[in-house]
């Protein structure tokens, strides 16, 4: 059988499926000796307490994250506290010396059977809740924690409904050789992570957790977005060959990694890296600058609001590892799909159009200024510039700059060192700010084009929704024109503009972007070699001609076809 999804991270994986799903437990009938009733009744009571604590924690964190699914777990607590279930389990242990797992299984089965008979969809759904609570009780009874991806015993292809930022944060890179999820498009969190780790991935495969069996051998093609179940020997041979070719291609690109990026005519291009928070010296290989230091991961990986000192040390480490390469620090961008456990945010109907990034920071001046002071102090250790995400107007730009002035004054009062001439810039990712790029250029030292959100907002497409991923067109003539205008306006003012969105790391777009005038491309470290290779194939004149043509094409498909013909 062949499953189709979005191939979001290239490469081939052949391996066993690891179904990342709720705990499975087979219970067999068992009894204990008379006289030990108290001990086993206590086990039952303890299991309920532990399960309840887990559920409360889930509800707490989901509520904090603004997730409306938390009520499912409230229903689970109701089931957990159900008098009749408790009575059945207690009686079985006390009167029939049933072992707790057997007693639990029997009690739940009785009600599952009762409810399964109902001709009502709502009640049938509750059967799933009963199964879920039973599984949780049986698991805590065994003293097992909820499954996660940090302790895998062998190399596997992870199959899940979705991977949450908390799952991917703990994922063991050495064991996960492929990822398949039911939801998610090319710019989802899982996709960005998979590319960053170079893990082949196919996302948006409906029903993947039902169709793919745990432990079965499958072939995953992250380049074309296919998953093959029960592959034949021929399939395995074919895909092993494809895997070898892919790795050979990677090796060829690798040669480019250490060369300076340039077009065929010699025109130099600067290549930047996009980084999460914890930098290692290897992150900087082949790069000229850090085009995007995302600071969210420092906040998301913490159980408390990071202090100024903690942030300062983390930022300073990046500046030191960068060894003189300018670092562009983007201030906190939470809200939208990213939430913090210790900062409960009200649920919004449209979080991507809501209070995220600077909009949130403006309302939380202590949080914002703490980060700005930490960033300013890190600028004493080496070149660092500050960039504000999600600005939508000149008002936003000025407000953010005013906060920097306040943070500077606070540091001055404390006598702390920082770069007095620190450069300030903005992300261009909201169409309203792109439309006034000329005015923005007058207000800032630099800008960086964030193509993921710019495309999302320009095309009015939720990039997390796989149902409409066809509408999310990063090669649409509309986006190409907007990007061209932004670069033109910044060039006219003599201000620097770079691109840190996914498009900058897409080798297919290299000729187009260079032709539109982009000279600074920032991307995840894994894309650098490939983009340098792509850039080396064209002269500036060829790139400019290609860009001029692409701007006047009518559809994304025409752009793709045109770019493919340029490569020949």
């Amino acid at each position, binding site marked *: 059988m062949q499953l189709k999804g979005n191939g979001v991270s290239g490469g081939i994986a052949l391996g066993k499926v690891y179904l990342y799903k709720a705990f499975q437990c087979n219970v067999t009938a068992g009894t204990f000796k008379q006289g030990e009733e108290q001990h086993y009744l206590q086990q039952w009571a303890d299991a309920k307490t532990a399960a309840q604590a887990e559920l409360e924690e889930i509800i707490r964190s989901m509520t904090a994250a603004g997730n409306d699914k938390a009520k499912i777990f409230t229903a689970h607590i109701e089931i957990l506290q159900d008098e009749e279930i408790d009575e059945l389990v207690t009686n079985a242990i006390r009167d029939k010396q049933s072992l707790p797992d057997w007693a639990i299984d029997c009690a739940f089965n009785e*009600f599952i059977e009762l409810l399964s008979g109902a001709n009502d969809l709502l009640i049938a759904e509750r059967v799933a809740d009963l199964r879920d609570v039973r599984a949780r009780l049986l698991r805590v009874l065994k003293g097992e924690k909820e499954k996660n991806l940090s302790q895998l015993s062998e190399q596997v292809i992870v199959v899940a409904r979705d991977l949450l930022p908390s799952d991917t944060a703990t994922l063991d890179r050495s064991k996960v050789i492929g990822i398949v999820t039911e939801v998610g498009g090319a710019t989802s969190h899982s996709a960005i992570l998979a590319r960053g780790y170079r893990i082949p991935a196919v996302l948006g495969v409906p029903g993947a957790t039902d169709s793919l069996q745990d432990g079965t051998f499958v072939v995953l093609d992250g380049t074309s977005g296919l998953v093959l179940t029960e592959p034949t020997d021929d399939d395995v041979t074919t895909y092993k060959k494809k895997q070898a070719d892919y790795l050979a291609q990677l090796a060829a690109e690798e040669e480019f990694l250490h060369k300076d990026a340039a077009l065929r005519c010699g025109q130099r291009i600067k290549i930047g890296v996009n980084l999460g928070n914890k930098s290692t010296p290897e992150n900087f290989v082949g790069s000229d600058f850090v085009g995007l230091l995302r600071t969210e991961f420092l906040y998301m990986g913490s159980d408390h609001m990071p202090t100024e000192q903690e942030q300062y040390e983390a930022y300073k480490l990046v500046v030191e590892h960068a060894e003189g390469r300018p670092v562009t620090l983007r201030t906190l961008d939470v809200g939208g799909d990213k939430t913090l456990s210790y900062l409960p945010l009200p649920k919004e109907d449209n979080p991507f159009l809501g209070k995220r990034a600077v909009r949130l920071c403006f309302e939380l001046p202590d949080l914002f200024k703490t980060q700005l002071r930490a960033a300013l102090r890190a600028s004493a250790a080496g070149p660092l510039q500050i960039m504000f995400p999600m600005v939508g107007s000149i008002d936003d730009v000025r407000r953010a700059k005013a906060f920097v002035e306040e943070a500077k004054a606070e540091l001055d009062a404390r006598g702390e060192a920082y770069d007095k001439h620190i450069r300030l810039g903005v992300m261009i990712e909201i169409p309203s700010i792109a439309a006034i790029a000329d005015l923005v250029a007058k207000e800032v030292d630099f800008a960086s084009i964030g193509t993921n959100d710019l495309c999302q907002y320009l095309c009015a497409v939720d990039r997390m929704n796989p149902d409409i991923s066809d509408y999310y067109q990063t090669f649409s003539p509309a986006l190409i024109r907007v990007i061209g205008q932004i670069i033109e306006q910044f060039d006219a003012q003599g201000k620097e503009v770079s691109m840190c969105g996914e498009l900058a790391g897409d080798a297919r777009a290299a000729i187009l972007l260079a032709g539109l005038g982009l000279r600074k491309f920032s991307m995840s470290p894994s894309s650098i070699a490939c983009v340098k290779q792509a850039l080396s194939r064209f002269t500036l004149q060829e790139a400019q001609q290609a860009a001029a043509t692409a701007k006047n094409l009518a559809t994304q498909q025409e752009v793709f076809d045109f770019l493919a013909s340029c490569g020949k």
Partner: protein
Amino acid sequence: MYSKQTTVVNKAGLHARPASEFVMKAKSFTADVTVRNMDKNGAAVNAKSIVRLLGEGLGTGTKIEIAAEGADEKAAVDALVALVDSGFGE
């Protein structure tokens, strides 16, 4: 022992959220509370058990009898009948 009869009027019946509200209200009284499906001439079941209540499949239009025994039996039955009659705010 005190009891009253009424009819489920809300569209969803005693399922999902209404059932949860019903059980929560029943649990707020010390009296033992039961519900009986009059249409099926069923047995009285524990009104403080969500799974038992769901098992009765009390859809809209079902005639039910709510009964209670204990110190606050009258208050319990009256409150639960009022809740059912209110249609759970649907």
